[in-house]
């Protein structure tokens, strides 16, 4: 009797388990961009950006090259309608004969290719080539995608257009003022030594402004030109700060200006050192120029620390946060989202802000775009301004860049 009971209980349990099974299917892992199991195709050694998709367009594999070049935009690239259309075209090709790849080249399925442009996070033109992969049953609906970045040609075009737009807009103002004063000097004002002196002073200021503008514009286009190539050097933040300090130290010799440093040790970031120095210099320059209030002492705090991991305001994988904080006059909240626009300036162009080109933060944004970083600016009138720069950690791709 006991035996029967046990057998019955066992049977009930077995049936229950069997019934449960289909109801709790295992979900695929969340981090689908990561897995490269040995059973998969060896896409990592390919000297190109390669991705393997399944028949539904889900990503099966991403090789190191593609992950480093395109980061997490891979998803956005592959769901673009043009990429989807190419995928279904590639899948319509006949199934390759043998799973180990065809010996006869003529048997290979055709390559489907497409070219399109994405706007965010950086404007990119992409060329995709897709080919259906050979494989056994259940494995035959896979497609290999090779991604090529064709942004450079487009970027050159766009920069030319931008430059023309800016030249007509911003460069004309100082030029108009220069030619106005030249007219005046050739007229009656030229005879008067006091006025002549005054006018020449203004003209020098305007021509210096013009020169600054052109320098800045050229720098900005240089940054934009390689915006879509991620930096490969590993930089120690302490070295970075040393360079910055050397540059700005003379500016703090003036009465009432203090520079404080709060820097953690051993912070490594994947960055272009010259460009990151430029970022910090621009931010400090802004604090000095716009933060200062007559008579009040100005303190600027430069900090660098590890990003605390459970901080949902930054991307979840660590990284380094650089901070530039001042106790100056601050600004209204409605300026904040527009600060990184080209030529956007807080305040009327006649006051101290007129000295700036309106390009500093735009340059900062483009440099950080290239680094895959973030910029946050917090400010309130009378409460100072805090700029936080987040940079991704040197991380796993480090190994690759060190080998090269």
């Amino acid at each position, binding site marked *: 009797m006991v035996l029967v009971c046990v057998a019955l209980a066992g049977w009930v349990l077995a049936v229950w388990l069997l019934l449960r*099974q*289909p109801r*709790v*299917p295992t*979900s*695929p892992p*969340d*981090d689908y*961009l990561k897995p490269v199991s040995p059973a998969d195709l060896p896409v990592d050694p390919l000297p190109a950006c390669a991705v393997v998709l399944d028949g*539904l*367009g*889900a990503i099966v594999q*991403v090789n190191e090259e593609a*992950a*480093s070049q395109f*980061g*997490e*935009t*891979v*998803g*956005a690239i592959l*769901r*673009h*309608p043009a*990429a989807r259309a190419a995928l279904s075209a590639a899948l319509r090709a006949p199934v390759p004969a043998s799973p180990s790849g065809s010996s006869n080249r003529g048997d290979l399925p055709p390559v489907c290719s497409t070219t399109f442009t*994405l*706007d*965010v*996070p950086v404007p990119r033109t992409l060329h995709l080539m897709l080919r259906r992969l050979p494989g056994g049953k259940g494995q035959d609906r896979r497609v290999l995608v090779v991604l090529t970045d064709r942004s450079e040609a487009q970027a050159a075009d766009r920069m030319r257009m931008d430059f023309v737009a800016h030249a007509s807009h911003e460069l004309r103002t100082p030029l108009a003022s220069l030619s106005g004063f030249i007219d005046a000097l050739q007229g009656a004002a030229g005879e008067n030594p006091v006025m002549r002196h005054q006018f020449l002073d203004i003209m020098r200021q305007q021509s210096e402004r013009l020169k600054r503008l052109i320098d800045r514009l050229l720098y900005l286009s240089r940054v934009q030109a390689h915006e879509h190539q*991620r930096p490969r050097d590993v930089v120690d933040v302490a070295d970075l700060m040393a360079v910055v300090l050397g540059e700005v130290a003379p500016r703090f010799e003036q009465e009432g200006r203090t520079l404080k440093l709060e820097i953690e040790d051993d912070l490594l970031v994947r960055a272009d050192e010259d460009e990151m120095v430029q970022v910090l210099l621009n931010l400090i320059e802004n604090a000095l120029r716009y933060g200062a209030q007559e008579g009040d002492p100005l303190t600027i705090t430069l900090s660098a620390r590890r990003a605390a991991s459970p901080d*949902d*305001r930054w*991307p979840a*994988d660590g990284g380094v946060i650089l901070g530039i904080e001042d106790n100056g006059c601050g600004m209204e*909240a*409605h*300026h*904040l*989202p*527009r*600060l*990184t*626009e080209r030529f956007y300036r807080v305040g009327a162009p006649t006051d101290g802000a007129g000295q700036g080109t309106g390009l500093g933060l735009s340059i900062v*944004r483009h440099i950080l*775009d290239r680094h*895959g*970083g*973030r*910029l*946050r*600016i*917090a400010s*309130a*009138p009378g*409460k100072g301004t805090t700029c936080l720069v987040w940079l*991704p*950690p040197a*991380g*796993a*791709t480090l190994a690759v860049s060190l080998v090269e």
Partner: protein
Amino acid sequence: MADRSHIVKSYEQELGQLRSMMAQMGGIVENQVALALSAIADRNEEAADAAARQDPEVDQLEREVESLAIRLLALRSPMAGDLREIVAALKITGDLERIGDYASSIARRSLRIRMPENQISLSGLRSMGRLVQENLRRSIDAITQQDSNRAMEVWHSDRAVDEYYTALFRELVTYMMEDARNIRACTELLFIAKNLERIGDHATNIAERVFYAVTGDNLPSLRPRGAPASALTVAETMQEPDVR
């Protein structure tokens, strides 16, 4: 037993199909928004037509996602995370469809704008568009990767979109006060800015639903708002770090 494994596999295939359709729909909608913005910023009429032409396809996909989701719910009795994902998909597809509508409305409106001689600066609108596009991209990434962190990020940066809208509103009103001939074009641009703001809102809705689907928790019903000036603001959103 063989039969049973077939059932499991087919269930997973259907779930995969659902995810694939969501990604496809996301891709089309992203493209529509990009085309609509290019229609205004570059005066590209071809892009405006292309954006409006994709509407029926998005509507069709919405219906397909709905019927597949209902089929999964009815026949497979999904549980826990899967159940939340499928129910979230039902709602997200509505958000995506609305975003597509707003994009094609922007595109159609762009064809009607006659820019006055004294150039109205479009750089503000362009930057706002970029911010909204970036939020949309992240929220669709959050769907396809079922990533609650990405969803949180979108949720936090909606405030920047709202602030942008307020700033643009001021700017456009100023143009209108300067010269009455600007009123026609500026009114259209105002509607475009509003539509962009609505797209941002729907992207945030999506982020909230993904967050719920992944974690089972709800984000606070009060979103971070633009009002407190002292609070931290996302000045610009940027590229994500590398995937490792």
